[in-house]
């Protein structure tokens, strides 16, 4: 997935000698997008530097290979252009060849036919060099093996500089030049790019590094972002993901979340404009949640986990910056809520009595997915005494009745985040997710007389036409979504009510992560 392994492995090789041998194909196939490569002449290509003791050690072997291959050996040298003497080295002082060939260690020896790399040896191994080159005695007088040294392309700070130098043209976004005395974080505030918290300045280096998190091309259009209905490219998502504090491996989740949010069914435009406080709540399912270290356990809806905290923020920054949706402008929320900075969490699948939420919503098992829900801030439901599922469901149902307003019916969906200690009660009783939803729907169904305007000495409520209805459900079909998450201690669950539900407002959207 992370095709730009040079960047992904940044710094790990610095100062350490490495030695490995591998064949072309397994690692190079990870390349994210086709990029121009140096024109390679058929024969042998070696990349060396004088500063590497192993490179100076193998000069006799290179000389033998040059003689045996009748001049088809091309030696690129990263530092001293005269090294190795007498073998007509080609300078690679600008590291273009080394970068394009993704050389991590010197010496590296390539076998090239038809202009393509076919085999690669890294470091010095007398047997391997002899076997690959077919030159008997190529290692005579040399030790059997020596590890190579780090390529200059991996010098501290070099991968970032080379990425900008050689891959920077992939970035199309407008550049904002900073004065030398201008603080870069303050510059982002000045330009209106921040949600109020500091953002990570989106330098080309950081954005290129972020783009290593996806195989999608930077100029691919992900979606159209409201309210300004601007085209949003992978690059724009990556920029905002950098600003939010994401790591490259989060980018596929952010991309899926952005796409899901801008889906017409989810209706990000309306959700942004509303005076209500709701905002996208992102639930992540599948293997990627664990792979990127997301939290589905203790403090699941709180702070402290980088992926949880930054993925939701990245989506909000895309809406703000690409879409132009800002508080006081198109965002007309009366109160808003803290989750509008970003609210994203993982379902605890391992501890769940139920199948993953994404599977319930039609995604194949084992595939990663995001589910977006137009939610308000969460609140707790306390029930520390119920050990029977009927009793516990009654507690949850009573709390669910108050979503939106106590008399509102059909108008609002709800997400119920069942904590592990509550889930245990349902697990022990054999209640499936469907069973729990059905029971809650039954318990939250009331006669129309209880919800009409004026009932209970309250003018709020449903129109008079509801008065005679014997049974009015609180939630529309499919309007109650159950997620399993939270810490293992605490007989609590959490509820998030939705914005206007369904066709008139927003319906949850689940989308696979690619």
């Amino acid at each position: 997935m992370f095709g730009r392994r040079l960047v992904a492995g940044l710094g790990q090789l610095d100062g350490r000698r490495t030695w490995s041998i591998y064949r072309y194909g397994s690692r190079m196939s990870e390349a994210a997008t086709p990029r121009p490569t140096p024109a390679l002449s058929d024969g042998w290509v070696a990349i060396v530097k004088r500063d590497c003791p192993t490179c100076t050690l193998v000069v006799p072997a290179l000389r033998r290979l040059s003689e045996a291959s009748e001049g088809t050996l091309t030696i690129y040298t990263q530092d001293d252009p005269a090294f190795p003497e007498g073998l007509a080295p080609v300078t690679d002082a600008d590291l273009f060849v080394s970068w394009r060939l993704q050389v991590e260690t010197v010496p590296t020896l390539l076998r090239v036919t038809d202009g393509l790399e076919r085999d690669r040896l890294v470091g010095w191994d007398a047997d391997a060099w002899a076997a690959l080159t077919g030159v008997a005695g190529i290692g005579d007088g040399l030790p059997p093996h020596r590890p190579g040294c780090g390529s200059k392309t991996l010098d501290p700070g070099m991968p970032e500089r080379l990425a900008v130098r050689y891959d920077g043209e992939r970035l199309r976004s407008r550049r904002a030049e900073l004065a030398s005395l201008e603080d870069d974080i303050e510059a982002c505030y000045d330009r209106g790019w921040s949600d109020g918290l500091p953002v990570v300045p989106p330098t080309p280096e950081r954005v290129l590094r972020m783009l290593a998190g996806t195989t999608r091309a930077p100029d691919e259009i992900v979606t159209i972002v409201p309210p300004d209905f601007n085209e949003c490219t992978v690059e724009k998502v990556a920029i905002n993901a950098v600003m939010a504090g994401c790591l490259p491996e989060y980018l596929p989740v952010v991309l899926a979340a952005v796409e899901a949010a801008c889906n017409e069914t989810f209706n990000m435009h309306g959700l942004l404009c509303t005076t209500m406080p709701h905002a996208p709540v992102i639930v992540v399912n599948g293997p990627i949640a664990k792979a990127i270290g997301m939290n589905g356990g203790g403090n699941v809806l709180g702070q402290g986990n980088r992926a949880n905290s930054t993925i939701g923020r990245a989506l909000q920054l895309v809406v703000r910056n690409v879409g132009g949706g800002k508080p006081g402008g198109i965002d007309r929320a009366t109160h808003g809520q803290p989750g509008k900075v970003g609210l994203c969490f993982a379902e605890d699948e391992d501890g769940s009595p139920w199948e993953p939420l994404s599977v319930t919503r039609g995604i194949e098992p084992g595939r990663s997915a995001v589910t977006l829900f137009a939610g308000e801030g969460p609140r707790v439901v306390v029930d520390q005494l119920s050990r029977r599922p009927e009793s516990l469901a009654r507690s949850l149902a009573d709390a669910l009745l108050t979503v939106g307003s106590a008399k509102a019916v059909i108008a609002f969906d709800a997400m119920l985040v069942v904590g592990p200690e509550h889930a245990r009660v349902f697990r022990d009783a054999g209640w499936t997710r469907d069973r729990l939803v059905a029971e809650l729907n039954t318990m939250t169904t009331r006669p129309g007389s209880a919800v009409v305007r004026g009932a209970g000495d309250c003018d709020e409520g449903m129109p008079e036409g509801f008065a005679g209805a014997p049974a009015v459900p609180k939630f529309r079909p499919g309007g109650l979504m159950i997620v399993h998450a939270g810490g293992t201690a605490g007989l609590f669950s959490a509820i998030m009510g939705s914005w206007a539900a369904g066709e008139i407002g927003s319906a949850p959207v689940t989308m696979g992560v690619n």
Partner: protein
Amino acid sequence: MEIQTFEPRTLLDPTGEQTPGHRELSARLDGVGGRTIALLDISKARGDVYLDELARLLEARGAAVELFRKPTFTKNAPIDLRHEIASKAHAVVEALAD
């Protein structure tokens, strides 16, 4: 004077780029008294003569004057110079022509 060199720093615009990248004009001053006015010499001949006279007139009206010069009239003012002017002065007068 200590001379420092900085690598140019750029950020990538995270917006939909529907608005101009340049800032909008600041509100016009209602007077120069008590204000700091920057005078920018673009390094064209006799620009300094014009600006010296302008400085005398501005100071007579109670303004503080800061003088700046950009290295060459053929190129935009360096961003550091623009930033310094913006941070020190309420307004700038640029002597544009010969």
